[in-house]
């Protein structure tokens, strides 16, 4: 008997799929392309998801809430050497799931609603909602699934639906390229993830999270610790692909070729978050080494994409790179072990980034598909609603106090500081440094964007005529409007903005505008205890099996150098946690990090507010007061400017190495196949044919020669004898008679002698 929540969650999972199936087949037969089907079903989904949220989060307000259900999907029978073996599919609901369900369904619903306005008049209007449906379905799948195999399946399905959505304007070559690029880049990430899954399966013959964690805890992992680290890093590769981390970040900015609602849904709120969510799921099996890799990649991504975002002109590209940068934050957060902070940022970022994208969509819509910020300006009085919501979201992204973004980002940075101190400083300080640098730049480019778009006077007339967006019109059904009055968008596009903007305020998450730790989220989603023994305790961890937490705790306290730190950590944790029943961390390193994180809370707040002021201040100086002329500066530091403007040349590098390389290899191999392998075959054939020709020659000149010679002899003799060939029977008969007479003559001779 399934729990009612499970049944509801299954409904949540399947309703978007239903919407997809209905719309993909009947969108042309239904009125309005059947958008009401999509919106209606998503509305239902949202209602159910919110009910689940209510039950789980509000009713039992319990960090340890967990509900699971599974069924046998594949049955391998009685496998020799292993015994009965099944692959199970299942659903798990805990606080994180409930929150994610609510978040995803809310944003998806808002995007549906928004699209009814934004996509009006498109050729494949109905199909668009179908695609949104399948995307939401696969996203729910990722959120709900309780094992690596099913999450991998939905992972790929998310890839498919993003492929379809990015390539929605498939008749634009740029869109077609972008969708292919996105899918392939994700595939590269997925291989790594798949290999990670394989490593774990090959040890435990199961895909389920809980089983795997239990096995690792019991030390059933019989390969070396390095393999476990490898598993963690490889699984992280999946996240690198989906969450557009360096070095696989290149697809996300190109993915802006999709319609803007898609950018909001996929590339801000949900899909890219899937990577982080997945890392959170497998967080407990990450070895410290794996965490280091993750932390550095996250930090570097946050920094690099922030530098790129500074110089972009396209409004959506700026947001795209800021997304990459924020995702870098989340990954950084996971890497440094502040699990709940990262997930907190994931949640808050989803709301304000979706708001930003939808806002930019509204602007683009109002500007008739003008995306270049250089030709905007002065929109604040024309589009007040958009202006207000966009600004709130911007501030949240920049991390201004009183916004949700501040709470989460500050928590992450605190974690980074703590991490750096625990790991013993040195190189590890790069992580927080990158983090703070990214914070400065975030504030700067967001200020730049808001100013360029909303303030100053309109610069539409400055736009060079010849590059007047033909792509946009090719993309868009109705023909050229020219530039008539820019107007505020309709209600169904405005409502989502308002809702999302409201969700970007601190009070939603935490009573204390300066400390997210006091909020319900941090209470419900707590960093789980790791199952891998950290390196210094590795050798002991290897030999003690089936330890319950307390025993391991005792061991850890007796023989690690953090012996006095751990209890302090607990004390700190207890004091800082709202209700004070914080988790007890058996692993000394983890306990230490948690402790230091709390210790660095205020430093982080001070530093990040400093950075914020620096960033916004610089934006004001450059773009408002015009003290520094941006163009001159750009000229002054042209190489740097170009380097940033061309996105660090990653695309060019990949194109020159990987893409060109594999094409070259494929050409070579094809040639090899056609000429060498097949050539050998044909060569053998030729040899045989040559041999046959030789035989033919022998035939012609030797055998045939004999024949001809005989023929010649016969001919000559024949020429003699033909004289007596009269063709008359009687002649021959006479000859016979003569012959007989000759015989008689012989006979007489015989008698005579």
């Amino acid at each position: 008997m399934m729990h009612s929540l499970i049944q509801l969650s299954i409904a949540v999972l399947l309703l978007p799929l239903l919407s997809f199936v209905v719309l993909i087949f009947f969108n042309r037969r239904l009125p309005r392309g059947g958008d009401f089907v999509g919106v209606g079903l998503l509305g239902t989904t949202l209602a159910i998801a919110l009910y689940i949220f209510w039950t789980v989060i509000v009713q039992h307000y319990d960090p340890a809430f967990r509900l699971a259900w599974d069924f046998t999907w594949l049955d391998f029978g009685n496998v020799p050497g292993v015994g009965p073996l099944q692959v199970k599919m299942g659903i798990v609901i805990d606080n994180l799931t409930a929150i994610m369900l609510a978040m995803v369904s809310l944003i998806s619903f808002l995007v549906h609603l928004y699209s009814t306005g934004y996509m009006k008049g498109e050729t494949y209007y109905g199909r668009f909602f179908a695609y949104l449906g399948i995307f939401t379905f696969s996203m729910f799948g990722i959120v709900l699934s309780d094992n690596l195999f099913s999450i991998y399946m939905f992972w790929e399905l998310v890839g498919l639906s993003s492929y379809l959505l990015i390539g929605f304007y498939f008749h634009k070559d740029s869109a077609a390229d972008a969708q292919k690029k996105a899918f392939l880049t994700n595939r590269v990430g997925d291989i790594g993830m798949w290999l990670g899954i394989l490593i774990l399966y090959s040890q435990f013959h199961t895909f389920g999270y809980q089983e795997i964690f239990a096995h690792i805890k019991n030390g059933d992992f019989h390969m070396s610790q390095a393999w476990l680290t490898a598993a963690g890093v490889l699984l992280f590769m999946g996240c690198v692909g989906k969450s557009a981390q360096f070095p696989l970040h290149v697809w996300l900015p190109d993915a802006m070729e999709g319609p803007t609602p898609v950018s909001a849904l996929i590339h801000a709120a949900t899909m890219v978050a899937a990577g982080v969510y997945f890392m959170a799921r497998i967080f407990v099996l990450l070895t410290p080494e794996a965490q280091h890799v993750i932390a550095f990649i996250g930090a570097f991504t946050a920094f690099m994409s922030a530098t790129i975002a500074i110089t972009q002109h396209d409004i959506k590209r700026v947001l795209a790179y800021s997304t990459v940068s924020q995702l870098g934050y989340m990954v950084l957060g996971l890497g440094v072990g502040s699990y709940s902070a990262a997930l907190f940022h994931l949640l808050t970022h989803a709301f304000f980034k979706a708001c930003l994208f939808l806002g930019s969509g509204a602007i683009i819509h109002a500007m008739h598909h003008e995306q270049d910020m250089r030709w905007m300006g002065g929109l604040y009085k024309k589009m007040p609603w958009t202006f207000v919501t966009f600004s709130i979201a911007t501030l949240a992204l920049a991390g201004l106090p009183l916004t949700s973004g501040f709470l989460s980002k500050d928590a992450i940075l605190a974690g980074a500081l703590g991490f750096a101190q625990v790991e013993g400083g040195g190189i590890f300080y790069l992580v927080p440094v990158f983090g703070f640098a990214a914070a400065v730049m975030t504030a700067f480019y967001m200020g730049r964007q808001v100013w360029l778009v909303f303030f100053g006077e309109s610069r539409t007339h400055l736009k060079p005529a010849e590059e007047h967006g033909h792509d946009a019109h090719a993309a868009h059904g109705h023909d050229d409007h020219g530039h008539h009055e820019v107007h505020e968008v309709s209600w169904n596009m405005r409502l989502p903005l308002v809702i999302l903007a409201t969700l970007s305020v601190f009070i939603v998450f935490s009573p204390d505008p300066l400390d997210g730790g006091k909020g319900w989220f941090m209470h419900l989603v707590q960093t789980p205890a790791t199952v891998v023994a950290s390196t210094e305790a590795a050798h002991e961890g290897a030999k003690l099996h089936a330890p319950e937490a307390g025993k391991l705790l005792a061991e850890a306290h007796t023989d690690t150098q953090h012996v006095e730190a751990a209890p302090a950590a607990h004390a700190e944790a207890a004091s800082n946690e709202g209700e004070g029943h914080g988790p007890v961390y058996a692993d000394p390193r983890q306990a230490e990090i948690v402790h230091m994180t709390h210790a660095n809370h205020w430093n982080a707040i001070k530093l990040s507010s400093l950075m914020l002021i620096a960033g916004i201040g610089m934006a004001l100086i450059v773009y408002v007061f015009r003290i520094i002329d941006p163009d001159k500066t750009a000229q002054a530091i042209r190489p740097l400017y170009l380097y940033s403007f061309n996105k660090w040349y990653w695309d060019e590098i990949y194109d020159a190495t990987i893409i060109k390389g594999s094409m070259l290899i494929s050409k070579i191999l094809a040639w090899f196949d056609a000429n060498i392998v097949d050539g050998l075959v044909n060569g053998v054939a030729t040899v045989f044919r040559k041999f046959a020709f030789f035989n033919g020659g022998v035939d012609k000149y030797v055998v045939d020669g004999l024949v001809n010679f005989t023929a010649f002899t016969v001919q000559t003799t024949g020429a003699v004898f033909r004289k007596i060939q009269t063709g008359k029977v009687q002649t021959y008969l006479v000859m016979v008679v003569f012959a007989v007479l000759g015989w008689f003559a012989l006979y007489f001779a015989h008698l005579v002698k």
Partner: protein
Amino acid sequence: MLTEQLLSIGVNHFLTISVILFGLGMFAVMTRKNAIVILMGVELILNAANINFLTFSKYNGGMEGVMFSLFVIVLAAAEAAIALAIVINIFKTFKTVDVSSVDTMKE
């Protein structure tokens, strides 16, 4: 002595007759132009052969000669039928039964 010999009919008489018949048949086959007459000659030759068969089988007291002469007769009948059919065809084709003018096989 000669008279005795002439009166006691023996092997040689029959052989002599058969030889004469054979010779006449040969002559016909060799010299005549008319295909039909040539056929008659062939019949004569066959008869001569039959006489020999019977003679030897009588004077050696075996049935072989008799039997073979029987077969010879049958074959002669067959041969005659075929030969005449051929002759008729030749006539249809060449409008003549003159074998000397039927020499398409020459060279």
